[in-house]
């Protein structure tokens, strides 16, 4: 799956967000109540291994290669931010 242009693909972005939330919930039983705006860092749900899983998920599901320098707290703080990162990285 390739994301071509996110400006007029709001629905697609919503769909990716749903998949990201579902994926993060599945990482760990403690993540079951994660919502798109949950702060994953404050709640301690995101560790370095979870970040590796996010990278693999982005690559496998969306052919998105996330550059290492983009792996910052700001870009990974919420599932919504993760979605934006994946969309930007798939372009």
């Amino acid at each position, binding site marked *: 799956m390739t994301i071509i242009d996110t400006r007029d693909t709001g629905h697609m972005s919503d769909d990716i967000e749903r998949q990201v939330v579902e994926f993060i919930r599945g990482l760990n039983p403690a993540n079951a109540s994660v919502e798109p705006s949950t702060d994953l*860092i404050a709640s301690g749900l995101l560790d*370095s*291994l979870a*970040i590796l899983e996010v990278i*693999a998920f982005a690559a496998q599901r969306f052919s998105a290669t996330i550059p*290492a320098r983009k792996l910052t707290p700001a*870009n990974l703080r919420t599932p919504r931010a993760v979605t934006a990162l994946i969309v930007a990285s798939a372009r």
Partner: protein
Amino acid sequence: MAERIEYPLFLDQCVALANDVDADKVAIVAADGSTTTHRELKRMAEVVATRLTAAGLAPGDRVAILARKSAETIAAFLGASLTGIVFVPLDNKAAPDYWRAVMSDLQVRALLTDRAMAADTFSPIRVLPLVAAPGEPVSGNATVSMLARRRTPHDDAYILPTSGSTGRPKGVLLSHTNALSFVDWAIREIELQPDDAVLGIAPFQFDLSVFDIYAALQRRARLVLAPELAATFPGLIVEAIEVNRVSVLYTVPTVLRTLLDTGALAGDAVASLRVIIYAGEPFPAPALARVMRALPNVSFYNFFGPTETNVCLAHRLTAPPADGAEVPIGTAASFADIRLVDPAGAEVAAGAIGEILVDGPTVMKGYITANGFMPAPRPFATGDFARRGPDDALYFCGRRDQQVKVRGMRIELPAVDDALLTYPGVSEAATFVIGQDLVACVGARDPIDEAALAAHCRSRLAPGSQPHRFVRLGSFPRLSNGKVDRVGLKAQVSN
């Protein structure tokens, strides 16, 4: 020309004096990019010294420090040190009850913090601001130097609370000499230069930071403080390296593996790296080899030693280890007297496994617990086992608690871990004895064929060392210092 002090006797003497040619050189670059020169740092330390003295603290008293990593925090260490006050860095991410317990057990008198909190939050421990108020006085150098004149390098300098993965934390009490004899050796070992930039990733309660802070200051290299979350987020480390042209990195294997696995070691952003030192836990050879191949121009070192002795063994890698090769933990540092002994305390025969005993100037003064001071036995028995190879280097054979007997067979758990790590897809391994079973935990992103993994173990391990059960986890729990939380992991798989 001012004479350079060759070997500082006290932590605070690592900072350049006002008449030193390097006084206006940048000492610290904070995570937000702001810089502090040696001259400014020395002044900040004197302000803290005055504040502590004015609050009634005397030489030998203890002050806890709860703060983000900043130049102010380092100034607090140096200011306490100037006045002979013993500082205790607290884990910034821990809970208030933990801080209270540590401060109570270690008989701390005051707390310096950059957090907003009421003065009686930890009553009777007095809360003081870490950061100077505008125009806060320095009571001249008179008080400071008067106090300073009475001290010796063997005085208590700081206490590092142990990680506390089990039970109540103990404090490791260290002197100025304990720290600085290691620092002086380390500077020479890696040939640290004044134009180097050292990236400080380790939290200040973790002894890796002793190298970062005092080696950088003493050698007049820049200390670049990584953002608080850098150990988790590779983007923060890449940015800090690139922006500050970082050349020296001292961290745990886990951080290096995360950098490798996220692609952070590829490309020009990290081209300024010159030296990487790892410590704290074994580095599985396959992963180490991949990190080294990604950075062919970097010199790699393993530093080895518990907080109680600081680093006492070191190994410089000359090439990426071959598959299945054993990487030594090192040979004795020049200051360290290292022996391998049997349970009766006699030195073991050449090539035999023995417990590592350490003596020398870096061995701690002792532990501080709720029951008071317990002097360190000399030499210090580390609880780590090793054997000496024909190359005179020591090879790690596990912790005291990792040499076990299962169903009558003696097993070295690290050897089982090594076998598991050579199986494709396994990134981490930890083996435990649970009941009468040897349980192998593997960290792997994707499912593992258990029968194939068992066959793999049979091809590499003696019959008595075969795991009875395998548990796959997506990730291993970790302590705040980045090491695998073995106690937590064992509890998790025991259920």
